[in-house]
């Protein structure tokens, strides 16, 4: 057993610390790269100046590839030789001297070269500034490369510069074309393109014309004479016949702008300056190919491929496709569409689909609501019709009960008319006839006739079904007429009616026959309620007046036994009746009529003796 703090314990502790330290160091060592990648120095040499679009695009491709392969462990140097604008030997000598001095103490790992002139320069002077350094080139076509015949430590991303592919694309987009015009400048490289085109182009059925050795103005002038039946193919345009050095892209743009025919090219830089397009490699893809090839060369020149090919693909400027009215369906499926303006559908199809769905849903909802609303209106109309029917049936039933009294009521004027007429006849037969009395008799006959006609009109109004139209009425008049019609019946029942109405008309909006029905029903109900009373006590009070709030009140009171609140509530339900043989929907219908008038019909609960039914109608 070892005592803590003793010599054995201290040894043990020291050993443990040593082990821990060793573990920590091992962990740190294993986290670091096993073999550190050295910083690579890459020189990129361009033939032209730094603002040439092809150079800008290619530089971005190279940068992307190198950044992906090396991260930050690289140093990139760029030289723009500007050989086309400064073609003399002095410029080249100065360049060589400058480069030699500049990179004397800066060992390079690889030189990337774009364009044939630059490659020639580098191959010629590499010993001065990059001796023994492998070279990677790109953007050159096979004829150029074959002419240069680079040595074995030169690796290349060969460009197809797909002349035939561009012609094929043009023919596809212009199926009706009859001519093909091919333009090339006067520079050596331009002539290489012209030769290639003459050798390679196969366009059966097209008249092909090659134009070269013209001034820029000459090219533009010829282009302007072309028509829609022609395909214009513009190749290299770096020098014109006047000896003017051109920036290919700018010159080509001027020619395309002047052209009456759609223009095509083999360089991606032409797409976007007025050309429809072509089968092209992008300079960015050439840059990426050079960058990737350089990485392989730096890693192991022995295994790096000496030749890779950058593929071409159809590329169009969407604006030019639109401008020339070219059918987009003719485009090959893998076409890269620059400046593509998607249609509203392409851009917003989700939103459009969603909106359409919402609109459809809304429309469906609206249609459903309309159908429902129409159905409801139809049902309401049917209900209204049935209500009219029922009200009419109730009126007829009531009139049936009243028929005897009505007959009596009609017989009164008829009696008077007959008696008057016979008396008049006798008076006329007297000598001399009492003409004054005969006149009075005739007046009475006329009055009684009108009275009979009124009764018949009232009856007819109650008998016919009519419509539910509301018109302006005098409620006092409605009460007077109705009570008059019931007079005989009330007399027969030995029941008196006291009508309390103002002298002025009491206007309401209502349906005459329906309001009469209410008055008649309430009046006869009141008479019925007092049947067991002695005749002297049978008294109905009918009151009609405007209330303070402008609404109209019609109240019919009796002195009968009254009803319990339960019976009152029940009385408004259909098929509830205390009358033997009664249908029992009189009050129910009266309330329905009142409601159809926007009013109410209720018992006056404050009345303790007898019953008082109150109709309230809205102010007119």
């Amino acid at each position, binding site marked *: 057993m070892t005592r803590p703090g003793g010599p054995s314990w201290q040894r043990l502790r020291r050993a443990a610390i040593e082990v821990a330290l060793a573990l920590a160091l091992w962990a740190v060592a294993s986290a670091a790269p096993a073999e550190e990648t050295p910083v690579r120095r890459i020189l990129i040499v361009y033939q032209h100046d730094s603002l040439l679009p092809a150079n800008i695009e290619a530089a971005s491709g190279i940068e992307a590839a190198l950044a992906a392969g090396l991260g930050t462990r690289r140093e990139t140097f760029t030289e723009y030789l500007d050989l086309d604008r400064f073609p003399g030997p002095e410029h080249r000598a100065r360049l060589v001297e400058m480069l030699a001095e500049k990179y004397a103490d800066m060992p390079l790992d690889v030189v990337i070269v774009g364009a044939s002139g630059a490659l020639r320069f580098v191959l010629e002077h590499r010993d001065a500034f990059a001796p023994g350094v492998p070279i990677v080139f790109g953007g050159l076509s096979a004829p150029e490369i074959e002419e240069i015949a680079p040595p074995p430590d030169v690796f290349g991303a060969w460009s197809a510069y797909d002349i035939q592919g561009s012609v094929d694309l043009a023919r596809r987009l212009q199926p009706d074309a009859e001519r093909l015009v091919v333009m090339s400048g006067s520079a050596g490289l331009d002539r290489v393109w012209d030769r290639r085109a003459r050798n390679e182009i196969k366009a059966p059925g097209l008249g092909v014309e090659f134009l070269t050795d013209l001034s820029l103005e000459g090219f533009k002038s010829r282009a302007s004479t072309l028509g829609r039946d022609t395909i214009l193919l513009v190749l290299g345009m770096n020098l014109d016949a006047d000896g003017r050095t051109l920036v290919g892209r700018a010159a080509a743009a001027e020619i395309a702008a002047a052209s009456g025919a759609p223009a095509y090219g083999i360089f991606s830089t032409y797409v976007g300056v007025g050309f429809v397009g072509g089968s092209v490699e992008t300079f960015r893809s050439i840059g990426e190919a050079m960058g990737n090839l350089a990485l392989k060369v730096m890693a192991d020149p022995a295994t790096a491929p000496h030749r890779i090919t950058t593929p071409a693909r159809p590329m169009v400027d969407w604006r030019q496709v639109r401008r020339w009215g070219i059918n987009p369906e003719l485009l090959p499926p893998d076409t890269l569409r620059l400046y593509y303006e998607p249609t509203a559908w392409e851009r917003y199809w989700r939103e459009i689909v969603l909106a359409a769905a919402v609109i459809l849903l809304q429309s469906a909802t609206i249609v459903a609501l309309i159908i429902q609303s129409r159905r409801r209106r139809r049902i309401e109309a049917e209900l209204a019709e049935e209500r009219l029917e029922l009200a009419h049936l109730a009126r007829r039933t009531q009139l049936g009960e009243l028929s005897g009294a009505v007959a009596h009521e009609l017989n*009164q004027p*008829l*009696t*008077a008319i007959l*008696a008057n007429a016979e008396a*008049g006849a006798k008076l006329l037969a007297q000598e001399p006839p009492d003409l004054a009395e005969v006149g009075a008799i005739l007046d*009475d006959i006329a009055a009684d006739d009108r009275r009979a006609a009124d009764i018949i009109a009232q009856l007819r109004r109650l008998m016919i079904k009519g419509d539910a139209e509301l018109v302006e009425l005098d409620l006092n008049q409605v009460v007077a007429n109705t009570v008059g019609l019931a007079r*005989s019946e009330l007399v027969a029942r030995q029941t008196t009616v006291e009508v309390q109405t103002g002298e002025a008309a009491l206007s309401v909006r209502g349906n005459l026959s329906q309001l009469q029905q209410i008055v008649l029903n309430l009046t006869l109900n009141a008479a019925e309620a007092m049947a067991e009373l002695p005749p002297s006590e049978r008294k109905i009070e009918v009151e009609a007046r405007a209330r303070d709030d402008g609404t109209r009140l019609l109240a019919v009171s009796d002195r009968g036994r009254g009803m319990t609140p339960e019976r009152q509530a029940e009385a408004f339900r259909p098929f509830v009746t205390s009358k033997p043989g009664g249908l029992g929907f009189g009050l129910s219908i009266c309330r329905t009529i009142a409601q159809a008038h926007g009013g109410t019909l209720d018992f006056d609960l404050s009345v303790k003796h007898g019953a008082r039914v109150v109709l309230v109608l809205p102010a007119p």
Partner: protein
Amino acid sequence: MGNARNVIAIVDDDEGVRRALRRMILSLAHAPVTFASGEEFLDGLAGASPDCAILDLHLPALRGIEVLERLRAEGSMLPVIIVTGLDQPGMRERCLGAGAAAYLTKPLGSADVSAEIEAILGNARHVSQRGRVG
């Protein structure tokens, strides 16, 4: 048929009917006296001394049949012609049973009224004469 003017009471609540019947009675060469209700008639009966009454069955408050019954209850033998605009079943028998001399339905023709009056007043004279004899 008597030539003398008989007094005929007309009891009807309808003014137009009253006026027309009044003219009819005048044209029949009788003397009409009109009453608007049963109560008015019973009250004025003594003063008017009618020979016959044309009594409407449908009177407010006191109905025609009740007027007749009251007359008879009071011992009056006044001939009464009941007239009605509403010929309800059994009413004719009831009225005749209660002592009505005749039962006519409206509208009334003057020929019918005249015939009834003549018939009634002939009987009444006969009854009255017999009464006096008796």
